[in-house]
C-alpha cells in the first residue's frame, strides 16, 4: 500500500469517524432529551389522571346523594314505582349506573340492567363498600358484559334501602385528560379490558406482559410495544398501578409514540450518513490533492533513493519547496554528491592501492629471482681466476637460465591477467566441466605425500547445460580446486557439488581446511591479495572475472576450523551473447 493510499485511508476514516461520533453523540443526547421529556409528560399525565379521578369521585358522590334524596328513588325504595324507574332517576342524576337495593342487596330497580330486579346484587366489591362514604372503583355487571365504574352508595329513607350509583370509567375520562400530542392514556381494567380515549384498544394483548409485570410487582413498570411491523408504530409506556384497599383496581398506561423520536433519530442518522459520505468524498478529494502535494516530493526522493541504490549516484531530486520535504530533498542531493565524491575518491584510492600492490608484488616477485642472479654472477666473477671456472660457469649459467625462466613465468602470469580474453559462449555441460577438472587434478590429489585429500562429487542428475566459455570455466574451476587443495595441507575432503538453481546452475566447491577469517573473506577477490606465501593474488581475481563475464555470481562462506565453500551461480543463457557451438568453433 502506497503512502498516498494510506494517507487517503486515514483522512477518509478520520472524516467518517468524526461524523459517526458526532451522529452517535447527537442521537444519544436526543434520546436522553426525549426520555426526560417523556418522563415529565407521563408524570404530569399521572397527576392529571389522579386529579381527574378525584374530581369525578366528588361529583359521583354528590350526584348519588342527590339521587338518594330524590322523590323517585324514595318511591322505588317504598315499592311504589315501576321496576325500571331507576332508569329515569339515573338520567335525572346523570349517572351511568344506578341500583336501588334492599339492605340485603336485593335489587329493587336497576337503571343499567332493569331485568335484574329481585336478584341479589353481585358487584365484585367488598361488602364494606356498601356502607362506606367513600367513592370506590367497582366492576358493574351489565347485559353487555361488565364495566368499571366510580361508585358511591348512600342510604335511602333512613336505611330502608340503599342507592348505589356511579359513572363508567369510559374513554371520555381519558379524553378529558387532554394529553399532549404524541401521547395517549390507556386504562387496563380487570379482567382484561383496555381502553383509550377512542374506546377499546385493539391488539391489547400486546400490552399483556407489561400489565402482568405491574400486577405481579404492584409497582410501576416501563416497556414498549410495536403495534405493527413498522418500527414507527412503536410506543413507549409507563404503566402505573391503580390500587384500592391494597388490591389492584386497574393500570394506567401513559403511552408516548416513538414515531417522532425514531423519525428524528432516523433523520439524524440520515443526515450523518449524508454528511459522512460527503465528508468522505470531500476528504478523498482533499486527501488526494493534499497527499499529491505531500507525496510527490517524497516519491521523487524515493525514486532518487532507488536510483542511488541501483548505483546511479548522479541521481538528483528537484527541490520544489522550502519546507521539511525541501530540506530533505536538499539533504538527499548533498548526500548523493558526497557519495559520488567518496566513490571517486575510493576508486582513486583503490587504483593507487592496486598500483602499490602491483608494485609491491612485482617487486617481491622479481626480487626473488634477482637475488640468485646476483649471487650467480658474483660467483662467476670470483670463479674466473679459479680452476673450477668451467664447472662453476656451467652451474651458474644453468642457474641464470632457470631464474630467467622464473622471471619469464612471473611476467607471463601478469600478462595473462592483464590480457583476459572475452568469453566465447557455447553450450557446455557443467557436470562435464567438473569431471574434466577433477580428472586433471587427479594426479595431484594422489601425489600429495602422505596427506590424503578425498575428492567427492555430488552432481545433479538434471540438465546442467548452460551457455558458457568452457576454457574459462575450466580455468576458474581449476583455480578453485587448487586453492582448496592448498587449504588442506594435512588432507581432508574436497567436495564439488552442482545443483539446479533459480534460473541456472549452482556450483559449490568446499574444502575441509582451516577456513578464513571474515576480513579474509571480504578481501579474497581483491587482485593481488593472497593468504599464501608464494601466491600472486590473481587466482580468485581471475575466477571472479570469469564468473562476472558469464553474468554469474560468486560468493564465499567460511567458518574458522570448518573449511571454506565457494558458490558460483551461472545463468542458463547469455541473452546478448553470441553462442558458439562446437561445430562452428
Amino acid at each position, binding site marked *: 500500500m502506497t503512502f498516498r493510499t494510506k494517507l487517503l485511508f486515514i483522512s477518509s476514516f478520520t472524516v467518517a469517524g468524526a461524523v459517526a461520533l458526532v451522529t452517535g453523540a447527537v442521537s444519544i443526547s436526543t434520546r436522553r432529551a426525549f426520555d426526560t421529556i417523556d418522563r415529565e409528560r407521563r408524570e404530569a399525565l399521572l397527576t392529571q389522571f389522579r386529579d381527574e379521578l378525584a374530581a369525578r369521585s366528588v361529583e359521583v358522590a354528590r350526584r348519588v346523594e342527590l339521587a338518594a334524596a330524590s322523590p323517585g328513588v324514595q318511591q322505588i325504595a317504598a315499592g311504589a314505582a315501576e*321496576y*325500571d324507574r331507576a332508569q329515569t332517576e339515573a338520567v335525572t342524576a346523570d349517572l351511568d349506573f344506578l341500583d336501588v337495593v334492599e339492605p340485603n342487596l336485593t335489587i329493587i330497580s336497576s337503571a343499567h*340492567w*332493569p*331485568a*335484574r*330486579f*329481585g*336478584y341479589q346484587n353481585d358487584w365484585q366489591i367488598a361488602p364494606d363498600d356498601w356502607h362506606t362514604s367513600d367513592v370506590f372503583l367497582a366492576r358493574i355487571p351489565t*347485559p353487555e358484559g361488565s364495566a368499571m365504574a366510580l361508585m358511591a352508595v348512600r342510604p335511602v329513607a333512613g336505611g330502608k334501602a340503599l342507592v348505589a350509583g356511579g359513572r363508567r370509567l369510559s374513554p371520555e375520562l381519558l379524553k378529558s385528560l387532554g394529553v399532549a400530542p404524541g401521547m395517549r392514556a390507556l386504562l387496563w381494567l380487570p379482567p382484561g379490558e383496555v381502553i383509550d380515549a377512542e374506546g377499546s384498544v385493539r391488539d391489547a394483548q400486546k400490552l399483556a406482559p407489561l400489565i402482568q409485570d405491574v400486577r405481579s410487582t404492584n409497582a410501576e413498570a416501563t416497556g414498549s410495544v410495536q403495534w405493527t411491523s413498522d418500527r414507527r408504530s412503536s410506543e413507549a409506556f409507563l404503566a402505573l398501578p391503580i390500587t384500592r384497599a391494597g388490591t389492584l383496581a386497574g393500570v394506567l398506561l401513559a403511552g408516548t409514540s416513538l414515531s417522532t423520536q425514531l423519525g428524528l433519530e432516523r433523520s439524524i442518522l440520515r443526515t450523518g450518513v449524508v454528511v459522512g459520505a460527503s465528508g468522505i468524498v470531500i476528504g478523498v478529494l482533499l486527501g488526494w490533492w493534499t497527499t499529491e502535494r505531500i507525496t510527490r516530493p517524497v516519491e521523487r526522493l524515493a525514486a532518487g533513493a532507488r536510483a542511488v541504490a541501483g548505483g546511479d549516484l548522479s541521481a538528483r531530486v528537484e527541490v520544489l519547496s522550502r519546507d521539511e520535504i525541501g530540506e530533505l530533498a536538499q539533504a538527499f542531493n548533498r548526500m548523493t554528491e558526497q557519495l559520488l565524491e567518496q566513490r571517486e575518491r575510493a576508486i582513486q584510492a583503490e587504483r593507487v592501492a592496486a598500483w602499490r600492490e602491483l608494485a609491491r608484488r612485482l617487486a617481491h616477485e622479481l626480487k626473488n629471482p634477482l637475488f640468485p642472479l646476483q649471487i650467480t654472477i658474483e660467483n662467476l666473477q670470483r670463479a674466473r681466476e679459479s680452476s673450477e671456472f668451467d664447472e662453476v660457469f656451467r652451474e651458474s649459467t644453468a642457474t641464470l637460465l632457470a631464474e630467467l625462466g622464473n622471471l619469464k613465468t612471473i611476467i607471463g602470469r601478469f600478462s595473462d591477467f592483464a590480457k583476459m580474453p572475452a568469453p566465447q559462449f557455447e553450450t557446455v555441460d557443467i557436470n562435464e566441466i567438473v569431471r574434466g577438472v577433477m580428472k586433471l587434478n587427479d594426479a595431484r590429489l594422489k601425489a600429495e605425500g602422505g596427506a590424503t585429500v578425498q575428492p567427492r562429487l555430488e552432481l545433479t542428475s538434471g540438465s546442467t547445460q548452460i551457455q558458457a566459455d568452457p576454457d574459462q570455466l575450466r580455468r576458474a574451476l581449476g583455480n578453485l580446486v587448487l586453492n582448496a587443495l592448498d587449504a588442506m595441507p594435512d588432507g581432508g575432503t574436497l567436495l564439488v557439488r552442482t545443483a539446479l538453481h533459480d534460473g541456472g546452475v549452482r556450483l559449490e566447491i568446499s574444502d575441509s581446511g582451516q577456513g578464513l577469517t571474515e576480513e579474509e573473506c571480504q578481501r579474497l577477490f581483491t587482485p593481488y591479495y593472497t593468504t599464501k606465501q608464494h601466491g600472486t593474488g590473481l587466482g580468485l581475481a581471475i575466477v571472479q572475472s570469469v564468473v562476472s563475464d558469464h553474468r554469474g555470481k560468486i560468493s564465499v562462506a567460511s567458518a574458522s576450523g570448518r573449511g571454506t565453500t565457494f558458490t558460483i551461480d551461472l545463468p542458463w543463457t547469455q541473452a546478448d551473447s553470441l553462442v558458439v557451438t562446437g561445430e562452428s568453433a
Partner: protein
Amino acid sequence: MRRTALRSIAAANAVLALAAGLEAARRPRYGGELRVEMRAAVASLDPAVVPDDPAALGAQRQWMPLVFETLVSLDNHGRPQPWLATSWTHDAARKAWIFQARKNVKLHDGSIWSPPGGSIMVPDDRPIEQILRELAGARSAVTVKAEDGSLLGTGPFRIARWEAGKAATLVAHDQYWGGRPFLDSISVQMGRSLADQASDFQIGKVEAVEIAARDLRAPKQRGTTIASMQPLETVALQFDGGRVPAPVRQALSLSIDRTAILNVLLQKQGETSGALLPRWLTGYSFLFPSERDLAKAKQLLPAPQSLTFGYDRQDPVIRPIAERIAVNASEAGITLRQGAGAIDVRLVRLPITATDAWLALQDLTALLKVAPPSPAANSYESEKALIDSSGVIPLFHLPRGWMLSSRVRNWPRFDEVWLDVGAAQ
C-alpha cells in the same frame, strides 16, 4: 233485535270497560270519523291472504269482519249462528250441505248479493259441526270480485282508501243489511309505534290508540278511558327448527320466572301459562305446566349452553320480558345472546284470532309453519301436538288494551261505535 244479537256473537271476545252509566245516559248518534292508530302493518284485508307477521295477522282478523262477512258466526259459547246464511240442510244423498243465502244483502257497490239459486252448496260429508266451524272462520268470508278486480264485501264498512301497511279509510256501508253503522268512516294509521300513538293521542290527533298491557293502569288512574279485552295475545319462545335440543328447550322453559315477569314487568296484566290458548278460550290451560324449576333446569343441562336470541327491541312489551328471560336463563347456565345470523330462539307475540279454539289454532299453525290441526281432534290434543311439533314455549297471555278518547262510545264493536260530540276531550 236480530241485528243486535248477531253483533254480540261476532264480538264475543270483547269486554267493554267503559262506564256503563254514562253509556246509557246518552243516545247514540250517527256521523263522525273515528281515527285509530295501531302498530301492525296490514298489507291486505283479503281473507285468502294470511300474513306471516303475527301482529298483522291479529289486526287483519280484527278489521276484516267490518268489510267481509261469513255465512255463519260463532256465539260466546262457540255455537254456530246464522249470518249471511239464514239456514242450512243436507241434500238427499247426505253428500253435500245447502246453505240458504240471506236475502236483500247488498255488496259494497250497491248490487245485490245473490248466489245462484239463492243458495250455496258445500259438497262435504263431514259432520255439520266441523263444516260450520270452518265456515265461521275468517278464511271462509264471502268475497265477490268486481269488474275492476277489487274485492267486494257485504260488511258494515267498505274500503274507500287502502295504502298497504300504512293507512286505510273505511266508509260506512249505507245499505248494510244489518243497518248502517253510526260512524261515517274509520281512518286507520298503521305501523305506528306505541310511543307515537301515545303522542298523537295526547294532542288529540286520534281517538283510539293501542296501549301496552303493562301500561294499562297508569292512564286509568289519570282518568283516561282504557278499554282492555280478554287476553288475545300469547307471548312465547319460538325455536328455529330442530337446532336446539329438547332438553335445552325444556331447561330454558323451566328457568323462566313467569310470575315475577307478570307481576313486575306486566304489572299483573295477563296471565302466566304453558299453553298457547288462554284459559278463557279453552279452560284447560292449567294442564300445561308453567312453574319455574331452576334445579331441574340445571339438571337437564350437561354443560353451559349459548343460544342466539332474537326479539323486537323496539317492542316495549317484548323487550323487557326478553331481557328478564336472559337473566333467568343465565342462572340455569344458558346464555342468550343477541347476534347476527341464524337465530336459535325468538321471543314473539302470537295473536289469538278467533273465539273458537280450533280456528285460533288454525291461524297459529300457519304462523308457526306446522301442519294445521285436525277438525276431528279435540282442541287440547291439537294444542299439545302443536306445541310438541313446533317446539314453541308459551309464556304469557296478554290482554289487548286501547286508550280511547272520551267521545268514543260502544268500543270495540266498530259497527256500533259512535262518537259523542258533546263529551269533553
